[in-house]
């Protein structure tokens, strides 16, 4: 069992693969702190992966693709909010409906515009530094830039939650009663948070398409968005731990993928089971008290 865990190839894959999940987890975490359950994270990941790849291929610029991923993610996050609050679907239904629509739309467009496949090819994101010669160090150093960006975003988020606007965001999720008493415009805060969440997730989607898988297919996200939701819980809503949790999931998945031993491959389910255990039995699994309490926005 441990042979595989000792190889550089394993960890390199695991780290790269963890990055889209990490971005999605950070996005979901941000939305969650503001009180929105970002069920549409999977849809956002998918949609932004598609847009990022299309823009990159059409423009010839990888980074333009990443930018497009960010922007499309932002839009999708906002749409999720609109469906949930303005159309009063609630977080869960909104996220799931978004998923259906994005799956359909991207599937349709990719088959129409790229019947021979949509691939990054040479545009794929490559390692940041030249090889150091040391296998272990290479695992960390030769990751694409965005991998480090995920960590930076996590740290930035930790800092953000200690600022004045950060406290306002937290209040919207932790206590609607108090937020209301302190005249916090909760709906607006949640829209803003979902936009930011979408943008962050969008970068993850871009990386998924341009840095991990390199192609776009209908099932390219394969549940990573929901895995991200689990990461948020396992990390007890702490950004840096969420990145670690993403690595945990990715390692479990990579292991299952690379190993020949079937029984150990079953360990893939461990993170999911752990999440359930945490929400049922751990105080840390509580999350922002007023998360998911549906807001309905009534127009004037």
């Amino acid at each position: 069992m441990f042979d595989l865990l000792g190889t550089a190839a394993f960890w390199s894959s695991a780290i790269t693969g963890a990055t889209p999940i990490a971005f999605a987890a950070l996005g979901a975490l941000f939305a969650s702190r503001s009180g929105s359950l970002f069920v549409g994270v999977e849809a956002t990941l998918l949609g932004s992966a598609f847009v990022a790849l299309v823009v990159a291929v059409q423009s010839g610029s990888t980074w333009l693709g990443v930018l497009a991923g960010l922007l499309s993610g932002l839009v999708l996050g906002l749409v999720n909010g609109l469906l949930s609050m303005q159309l009063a679907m609630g977080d869960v239904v909104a996220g799931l409906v978004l998923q259906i629509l994005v799956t359909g739309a991207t599937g349709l467009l990719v088959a129409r515009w790229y019947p021979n496949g949509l691939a990054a090819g040479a545009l794929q994101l490559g390692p940041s530094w030249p090889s150091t010669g040391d296998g272990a160090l290479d695992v960390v150093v030769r990751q694409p830039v965005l991998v480090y960006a995920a960590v930076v975003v996590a740290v930035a988020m930790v800092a953000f939650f200690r600022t004045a606007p950060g406290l306002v965001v937290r209040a919207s999720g932790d206590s609607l009663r108090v937020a209301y008493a302190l005249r916090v415009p909760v709906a607006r805060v949640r829209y803003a948070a979902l936009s930011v969440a979408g943008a962050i997730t969008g970068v993850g989607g871009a990386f998924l398409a341009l840095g991990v898988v390199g192609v776009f297919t209908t099932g390219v996200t394969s549940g990573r968005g929901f895995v991200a939701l689990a990461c948020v819980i396992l990390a007890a809503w702490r950004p840096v731990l969420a990145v670690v949790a993403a690595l945990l999931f990715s390692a479990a998945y990579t292991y299952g993928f690379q190993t020949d031993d079937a029984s150990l491959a079953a360990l893939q389910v461990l993170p999911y089971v752990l999440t359930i255990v945490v929400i049922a039995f751990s105080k840390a699994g509580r999350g922002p008290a007023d998360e998911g309490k549906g807001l309905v926005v009534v127009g004037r």
Partner: protein
Amino acid sequence: MSVDIETQASTDPAAEDSSARRAPAVLARFAAPIGLQVLAFVVAIAVSLLLVAALGYDVGAVLAAVVDGAFGSAHAVSSSLTQAAPLVLTATAVWLAYQVGLFNVGGDGQLQVGGLAALVVALALGDLPGVLTIAVAVVAAVLGGAAWAAVAGLLRAYRGANEVISTIMLNFVAATAISLLIAGPLRSPSAKYTPRTDRVAADAQLGDAVPGIPLTFLVALALGVVTVVAVRRTSIGLRLRTIGLNREAATHAGLRVQAMQWQAFAVSGGLAGLAGGLVILGYRYYIAPGWVPAWGLLGIVIAFLALESPGLIPLWAVVLGIIGAAGPAIKGAASVPDAITTVMQGLPVVVVFLVGALARSGPGRRLHAALSRKPE
């Protein structure tokens, strides 16, 4: 914008309602009568066709493919209804859980566990007469789905664990476990390239009751009707609904809220499990990767379309089933990617809620008031 917040402060961890509870209920006030549903369907199809046209495809060919694929022959009708059968059950499952204020997002997982149970039983009892095999397999499917849901239900009722998260996680566990099983212990010796299981014996396979009408659809329909009638017309159903509508009042009235919640959730899972069993016995006959095309997810969509009028569940199931079944035909006849069917399936619910939002808006309210002032 003025914000209408509905919150509930409670010290009981299991008293938190999932976000589903309140928001769609607002729509109910501006209820979704049949007219609106038809409108939703028409608009959804229209938008989809517009999309198809914008992408340069032949709209006429698409329509022809759908109609043909749906009604063209007894076989076509049968295959549409075959697709509709699991949708009826998963939608009813979600609807039922919602009646007690819970959100069952685990339809896919429960369906898969149910299907697996049915398959295993059917293969194991291969020597017995078909009828017996089918009966036991069906029971196994129901129990499998119920057990899978009960995990989440119990944790929610007694520990306050958010059932949306736990059922989503369980979906993944089920999917992973099954994919490992079909590649391993359950792998059929005759599966050369892709892993899959053995087929269910021919005499245990369910076919059409009447040419064009699959037995699985009739069973699903029957159970859907029974469930809805039970909830709406019996005393137990009334108690379940009370729990969903006002948990506090239910507690004050002396109802055993936690017990009823997890049990209803388990029944919900049983319905989804049954869907899986019927899929195995009446459609797939074996398990291979990709054997479940998001029936659970679509079930949720249907349930929310038909929330206040659950009688519409079978109708929407058939409609979405037809669309789903038309996928290959559309691809073949009009060369349109079958992803268009997914878009078609997702739009109606957006339309319905959009109308609800418009009705709640300023101009909408004024219109509604003006219309209501008509003499009866």
